[in-house]
């Protein structure tokens, strides 16, 4: 029987339309297939790269900073373990705590946690994913750290951790040499593309050797390739390269001599340099008072910084290379050398000193008001007669003096690996024209003749000058013995200064007499002991002149003056006299005259250095000498 016609019609219509719909569906499936093909074949490479970038993070591995050692291997700056306590909020929660506060309450029973620190930790915890460790406390002492470790089972989410922190163990007397490290500033970051500098915990050298040799001490960052998930959580480490640790820096400094030299200042402000006159090795470079470099590692507190900044003795300044003093009478050797070389002055010829000397319409005085009488060159050095040097200086002229000063290392810097090195001033006519737009007058020459006027030197230059006088060689100062495997000890002797030996003999004879001949200006500061001796020269820099009116009230003593108006005392010396090995230069700020403030300190330093010298110890026995020379080589 035929089916309902209308049903047949609608079945036909349905079939047509179902076919149409299937066709459309097939088309849409086709677009899906095309799209899949496009993504998985066409763009597969591009997306594989993106997936890999998603997956892999590169973390920096911080290299260990090189240590700074003295010549015998004493660590002046090293890395100590920094005991820290971290909290991983997620772990604390997983182990049953409901909040970071609860975790802090528990830890607070074991380590001291001030409120402000608590608040900072809670803020930090709120703003970072809960799997990121938060530093709760750094620099725990061993007892605290041990207590945390013992109680660890009761401290959910707490992780003890050991990091590395710079440590300066030997004290303040090396602070200006070693310098200190601190957090990286934006300026430092912009100037250096080392990725390590982007790490918030990274420390960079700020002063001294730490700063100048920072690149060598720093080492090279390693990398750790880790797989991370979308939240940044590290899943596993894929590859690791530990980087290159920083190189160790061995200084020429003898920490023992450095300490002993610093102790001589006993609270006074000043600077001293001890140098090996043959190698140029600086055995001590002291600037007093010093500061504690450890204060800067984690950011110095306002109070500590204010104390350093406002201290009138300027503890932050390295006075041995930054402090510029007129050399005073210590410069007279240079004037004598210049006079000898000029051929205009016969050293045996005498100048009569009656205590004053006139140039133009200015009257100058000798430090000894009653005068020295007839002075030849040797005795003028011994007595530090001003009139003699006024006379010969004006006779030979400033240009000869300036040229001689230059040959003895004044007016120049030595490119020390230190911050703040100044070059001083050795003035001449051209310099004055450039600097003051004025002609050079004979009176200026007279002032320079006794180491005053425009002349400025540093204690390092004074030591170099003394070493060159003592050896007749162009000794250059050296602070670094080795960096990593690079040996920087001198192999070649410094070239001889092209001046006749008798000039040196004459000047040295004067310097010997200053200390070791009755009537010299520093006879009380003689070095004693068999084979031990020192020659030298005092210097006094007047800071304040008493007026004629003040003088009429009676003789003035320096104790009556306020500290900052008192004279600077200077001294340069070398020893032993016959075969010089060491040079020393001392400046005591506002300490009074050179023979009173500087010479006794220089003596104490030289005495100590000479007694420590291996050759003087050989008298004590072969064993001590052997041990000592072995140490020297190390």
């Amino acid at each position, binding site marked *: 029987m035929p089916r309902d016609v209308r049903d047949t019609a609608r079945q036909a219509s349905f*079939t047509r339309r179902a076919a149409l719909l299937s066709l459309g569906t097939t088309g849409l499936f086709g677009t899906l*297939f095309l799209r899949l093909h496009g993504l998985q074949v066409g763009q*597969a490479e591009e997306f594989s790269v993106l997936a890999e970038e998603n997956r892999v993070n590169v973390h920096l591995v911080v290299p260990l900073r090189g240590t700074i050692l003295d010549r015998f291997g004493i660590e002046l700056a090293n890395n100590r373990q920094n005991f820290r306590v971290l909290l991983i909020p997620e772990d604390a929660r997983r182990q049953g705590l409901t909040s970071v506060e609860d975790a802090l309450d528990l830890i607070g029973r074991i380590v001291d946690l001030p409120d402000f620190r608590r608040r900072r930790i809670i803020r930090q915890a709120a703003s970072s994913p809960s799997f990121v460790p938060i530093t709760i406390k750094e620099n725990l002492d061993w007892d605290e750290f041990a207590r945390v470790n013992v109680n660890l089972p009761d401290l959910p989410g707490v992780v003890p951790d050991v990091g590395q922190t710079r440590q300066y163990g030997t004290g303040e007397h090396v602070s200006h040499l070693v310098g200190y490290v601190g957090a990286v500033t934006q300026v430092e970051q912009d100037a250096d593309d080392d990725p390590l500098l982007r790490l918030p915990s990274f420390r960079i050298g700020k002063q001294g050797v730490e700063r100048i040799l920072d690149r060598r001490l720093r080492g090279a960052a390693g990398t750790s390739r880790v797989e991370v998930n979308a939240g940044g959580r590290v899943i596993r480490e894929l590859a690791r390269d530990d980087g290159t640790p920083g190189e160790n820096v061995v200084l020429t400094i003898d920490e023992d001599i450095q300490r002993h030299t610093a102790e001589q200042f006993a609270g006074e402000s000043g600077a001293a340099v001890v140098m090996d006159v043959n190698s140029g090795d600086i055995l001590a470079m002291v600037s007093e008072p010093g500061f504690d470099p450890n204060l800067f590692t984690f950011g110095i507190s306002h109070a500590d910084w204010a104390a350093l900044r406002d201290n009138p003795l300027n503890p932050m300044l390295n006075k041995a290379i930054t402090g510029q003093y007129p050399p005073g009478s210590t410069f007279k050797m240079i004037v004598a050398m210049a006079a000898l070389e000029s051929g205009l002055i016969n050293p045996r010829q005498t100048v009569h000193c009656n205590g004053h000397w006139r140039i133009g319409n200015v009257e100058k005085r000798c430090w000894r008001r009653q005068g020295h009488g007839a002075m030849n060159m040797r005795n003028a050095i011994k007595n530090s007669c001003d009139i003699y040097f006024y006379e010969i200086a004006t006779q030979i002229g400033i240009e000869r003096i300036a040229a001689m000063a230059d040959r003895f290392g004044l007016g120049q810097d030595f490119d020390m690996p230190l911050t703040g090195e100044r070059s001083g001033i050795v003035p001449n006519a051209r310099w004055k024209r450039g600097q003051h737009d004025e002609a050079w007058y004979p009176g200026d020459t007279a002032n320079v003749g006794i180491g005053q006027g425009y002349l400025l030197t540093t204690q390092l230059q004074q030591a170099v000058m003394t070493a060159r006088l003592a050896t007749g060689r162009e000794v250059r100062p050296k602070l670094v013995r080795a960096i990593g495997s690079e040996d920087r000890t001198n192999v070649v002797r410094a070239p001889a200064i092209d001046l006749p030996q008798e000039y040196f003999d004459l000047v040295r004879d004067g310097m010997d007499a200053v200390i070791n001949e009755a009537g010299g200006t520093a006879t009380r500061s003689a070095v004693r002991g068999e084979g031990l001796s020192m020659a030298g020269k005092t210097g006094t820099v007047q800071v304040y002149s008493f007026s004629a009116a003040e003088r009429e009230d009676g003789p003035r003593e320096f104790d009556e003056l306020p500290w900052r108006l008192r004279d600077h005392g200077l001294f340069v010396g070398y020893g032993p006299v016959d075969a010089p090995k060491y040079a020393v230069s001392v400046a005591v700020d506002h300490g009074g005259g050179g023979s009173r403030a500087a010479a006794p300190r220089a003596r104490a330093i030289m005495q100590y250095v000479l007694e420590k010298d291996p050759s003087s110890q050989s008298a004590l026995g072969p064993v001590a000498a052997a041990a000592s020379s072995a140490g020297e080589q190390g």
Partner: protein
Amino acid sequence: MVDLALTDFSERRSILSKIGDFNWGLLFLICLVASIGFAMLYSVADGNWDPWASRQMIRFALGIVVLFIVSLVDIRVWLGLAYPAFAMALLLLVAVEIAGEVGMGAQRWLSLGPINLQPSELMKIALVLALARYFHGLTVDEVSHPLRVIPPLAMIGLPVGLVLMQPDLGTGMLLLAGGGALVFLAGINWWYLIGSAAAGVAAIPIGWQFLQDYQRNRVLTFLNPERDPLGAGYHILQSKIAIGAGGVFGQGFMQGTQSHLDFLPEKQTDFIFTMLAEELGMVGAFGLLGLYAIILAIGVATALNARAHFSRLVAMGVCVTLFLYVFINAAMVMGLIPVVGVPMPLVSYGGTSMMTIMFGFGLLMSVHIHRDVDVPRRAGAFW
């Protein structure tokens, strides 16, 4: 009459004979697709049956039971239940609007003790049944009669409106497209289709006003994915990276870095196809889509072979719904259409959509088993 005799014969069919008439091939394909889903859920959990794969298997087992029961029920019973089911689904949609649980910024659930009921899912089946029931009673000429057009419009418009109010754009679009497809299949005049397409385009600016901010963002981000690569566009970008990185043969089962390192969002539900494409590559993705295509082809064949118009429409309705799920989900994770929350049927983790799909397959199977049952155009309730 032969017709009556046939009808009588089918009425007397035993359950065993019905089971014997099962389309076992279809059932096998369904199980195959579900098994792919289990494997992917096992991979999502980094090689653990918990928490997803095992529960999905239990749900699928329940789904198979539902499929069997639904398929054994005579197609005329479904015809009779069509309107009541639709009315109930509509009521529940209203109820969810009044007392529903809020999730993802939309009201979708109705908490009935331990069961969270999603009335919009019920509606997907009920709408197919109701429309099929309605058009079953009309001749070709009647379908396009202006007055006859109003009821189906209402049947589609009411639930779509309610679902959009939740607001659930994805389900709304699914209902609209599914219902529209049935109207089309019923033979409505082309002019209605052209007219409503034009009206739809005209309504876009108005509809825009009713979208939630997050929905607008999704559309804007779809139109320009670089607009916000770390925000709304992030998911789609990561999904495309995952699919692309899969290449032809994939990163390997359980080796997808994008998925396992959490760069993919919702990877056990809406983005599971992405994970499959990353781990099993184009081969795996083509394979899964191919299986769906074969299932759809079987479904269309079932529809064409059915004698009753109701059966044909129900079968095609189920096919269209399944296709829409697959297409919308796959197109979404590949960045072809904006992000809408539509799962990949049988593969995505989730109980409600699994039940909807299995119920649909049950209806399809019922149509297949009762393909020779004719239902008079004017037939009312079966019992």
